[in-house]
């Protein structure tokens, strides 16, 4: 069929089954927007900032497992999108971003709104394309979606010069992709898998170390099955919250800098780390030379470059977690789960000694209380997104996540401003679910213009602002490591969050008591409008436990012990 390059872009998006595109128009991408106007294969949501468009597409992808799509214009449109690309890149999120570019004849001339998009995005995309001819456009679009979702997923940029969007040519969307130089390994070497299983059977203190790759691979059920079958305890990374389920007795909790005592001690004492889709990030390992010092390591990862990057691995297995566990399970038929009884006992004692706890208050709302309360009120039904800071860590520690893709946060890049637009994407993907962005008084301002988007498109997400009048996480470090010099972290000067939400067509709640909290949450869920829930919390609460950066995992700063321990259910 004959059509313009702009039409081809739309046809490809439709052919890929994408229902929602997030974006922002401008000169170089106008022909594509003209075609968007004419078609009805997908909806387009006009965010109020390109960064938000990319985060929204990212949230959509994280909530569904499908490729998210964002569209931006050249120059500033593209540069605004870069933080979104980098955020998705660090967490391996499948996404295609289509950017307009100045006409081919102007490339390299410092044309109006020209910027080298492929050059800038090279280190923060899985791959990128600058389209040079109309003939290659269909193939490039097909490859972009394929590359984004296959192997270790990631964002792909397609930069389309304006003249190519106008040009008319033959369109047939390829059914398959053949990139001879790109063949991801899914299967996992059988011999290695057998050896790893033997190691599991002869270990005394094995530990499942579960990372975000399990979520990406949709392998949660398999991981649970393996844990159940072997009765091996598990720790989750920040990105894997929800994989085991909060009620699972084998789950010790989250490990790492703000991991709980039992998880970090388990990692310090285990004799066999069984890592699925985790990448031994520095926020997880602490001091490397002390990390899992007594353990052999099984590392299952689809990305060979992750294996042996930071720690020496005894059983490297390059492959998709799903495929590898499918092979492991039958080999584990004769495993004796009682073998690990003593180990589980030790860990239980660790957890009894220092459970995930905090000191609650009757005077003021504690942030941890707010998160646990939200968990009680909406629990399994909700999707929780978050921004970056203390509130993010408390959410990861205290919310009862029960399924994968329920927890959406920027773990790798740690992007403040991610939570609200990501919530829009998640809500668009799952309109039936309550979507709550747990955020801070600092972070929420970094994409607050999305109030307008949410109001216009009636995307009723709840922004739970845990308001400590601080850039709290930075303030915490200043308290611990900079002798309380609170340099540029005091946010005493605040907007009127309630009025701000209302001015943009949303709802605002001011909350300072537990009663008000319950009432506001109840009301917000029933409303079909976006809201800001401004929750006053105490200012100087710290996220604990904490392993100081570069310290050994077992050297944790622990919370104060209390009579009436409030345990993390």
């Amino acid at each position, binding site marked *: 069929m004959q059509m313009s390059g702009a039409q081809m872009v739309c046809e490809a998006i439709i052919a890929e089954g994408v229902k929602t595109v997030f974006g922002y128009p401008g000169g170089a991408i106008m022909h594509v927007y003209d075609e968007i106007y004419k078609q009805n294969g997908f909806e387009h949501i006009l965010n109020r900032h390109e960064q938000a468009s990319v985060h929204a597409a990212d949230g959509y992808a994280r909530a569904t497992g499908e490729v998210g799509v964002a569209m931006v214009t050249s120059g500033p449109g593209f540069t605004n999108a870069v933080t979104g690309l980098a955020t998705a890149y660090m967490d391996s999120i499948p996404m295609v971003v289509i950017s307009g570019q100045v006409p081919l004849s102007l490339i390299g001339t410092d044309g109006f709104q020209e910027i080298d998009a492929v*050059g800038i995005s*090279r280190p923060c995309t899985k791959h990128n394309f600058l389209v040079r001819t109309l003939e290659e456009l269909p193939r490039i679009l097909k490859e972009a979606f394929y590359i984004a979702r296959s192997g270790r997923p990631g964002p792909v940029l397609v930069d389309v010069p304006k003249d190519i969007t106008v040009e008319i040519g033959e369109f047939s969307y390829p059914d398959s992709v053949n*990139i001879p130089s790109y063949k991801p390994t899914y299967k996992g070497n059988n011999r290695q898998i057998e050896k790893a299983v033997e190691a599991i059977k002869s270990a005394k203190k094995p530990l499942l170390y579960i990372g975000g790759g399990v979520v990406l691979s949709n392998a949660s059920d398999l991981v649970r099955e393996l844990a159940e079958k072997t009765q091996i305890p598990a720790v989750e990374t920040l990105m894997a919250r929800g994989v085991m389920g909060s009620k699972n007795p084998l789950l010790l909790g989250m490990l790492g800098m703000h991991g709980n005592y039992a998880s970090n001690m388990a990692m310090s004492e285990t004799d066999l780390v069984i890592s699925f889709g985790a990448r031994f990030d520095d926020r997880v390992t602490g001091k490397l030379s002390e990390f899992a010092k007594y353990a052999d390591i099984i590392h299952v990862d689809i990305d060979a470059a992750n294996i042996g990057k930071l720690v020496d691995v005894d059983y490297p297995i390059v492959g998709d977690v799903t495929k590898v566990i499918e092979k492991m399970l039958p080999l584990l038929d004769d495993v004796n789960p009682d073998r690990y009884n003593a180990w589980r006992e030790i860990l239980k004692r660790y957890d009894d000694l220092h459970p995930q706890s905090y000191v609650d208050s009757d005077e003021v709302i504690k942030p941890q209380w707010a998160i646990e309360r939200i968990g009680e009120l909406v629990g399994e039904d909700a999707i929780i997104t978050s921004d970056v800071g203390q509130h993010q860590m408390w959410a990861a520690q205290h919310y009862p996540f029960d399924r994968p893709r329920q927890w959406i946060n920027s773990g790798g890049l740690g992007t403040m401003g991610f939570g609200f637009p990501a919530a829009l994407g998640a809500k668009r993907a799952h309109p039936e679910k309550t979507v709550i962005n747990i955020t801070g008084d600092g972070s929420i301002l970094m994409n607050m213009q999305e109030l307008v988007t949410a109001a216009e498109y009636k995307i009723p997400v709840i922004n739970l602002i845990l308001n400590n009048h601080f850039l709290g996480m930075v303030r915490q470090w200043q308290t611990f490591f900079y002798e309380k010099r609170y340099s540029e972290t005091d946010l005493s000067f605040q907007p009127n969050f309630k009025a701000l939400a209302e001015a943009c067509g949303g709802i605002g709640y001011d909350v300072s008591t537990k009663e008000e909290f319950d009432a506001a949450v109840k009301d917000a869920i029933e409303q079909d409008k976006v809201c800001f829930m401004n929750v006053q919390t105490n200012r100087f609460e710290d996220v604990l436990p904490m392993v100081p950066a570069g310290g050994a995992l077992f050297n944790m700063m622990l919370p104060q012990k209390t009579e009436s321990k409030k345990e993390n259910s």
Partner: protein
Amino acid sequence: MPKILKERRVISVVVMNESSVLARVTALFAARGYNIASLTVAPIPNSDMSHITLETNGGVKVMEQITKQLHKLIPVYKVIEHEEMVEKEMVLIKFPIAENLSDIAALCAAYNGGIANVGKEMVIAQVADEPKRVRHFIEAAQRYNPCEIVRSGVVAIER
């Protein structure tokens, strides 16, 4: 701390012929602060691929990470960390015409090279040999007051 051995390494990277592929390869080195000592690129005859030869320095772990990261690049088809290789490099040296031409010619001959061009004021010598021999040739050539030296970088092929 274990001793980190920084050895000279030669890596071949076979890539799809695409405009930005060289930038992707070199950016990977730059982003990690690894040095590229020499670099050659040319298309592989009768194919849509090119052969990049890189000369670099690094310990075993660093090299492992480099080769894995190179392999991850979408247009990279194959990465060969050379062990048993035949490698050659070429050098062109420009001498003033006033130098002793027969001495220079004899020196070139000793390194399997020769005089490539003689002009009004300059003579240009060429040698293609193993990188170590090329280095020796350059050292020996110093006494004839070379005014310009251009090396090609290494090409290598596994034995």
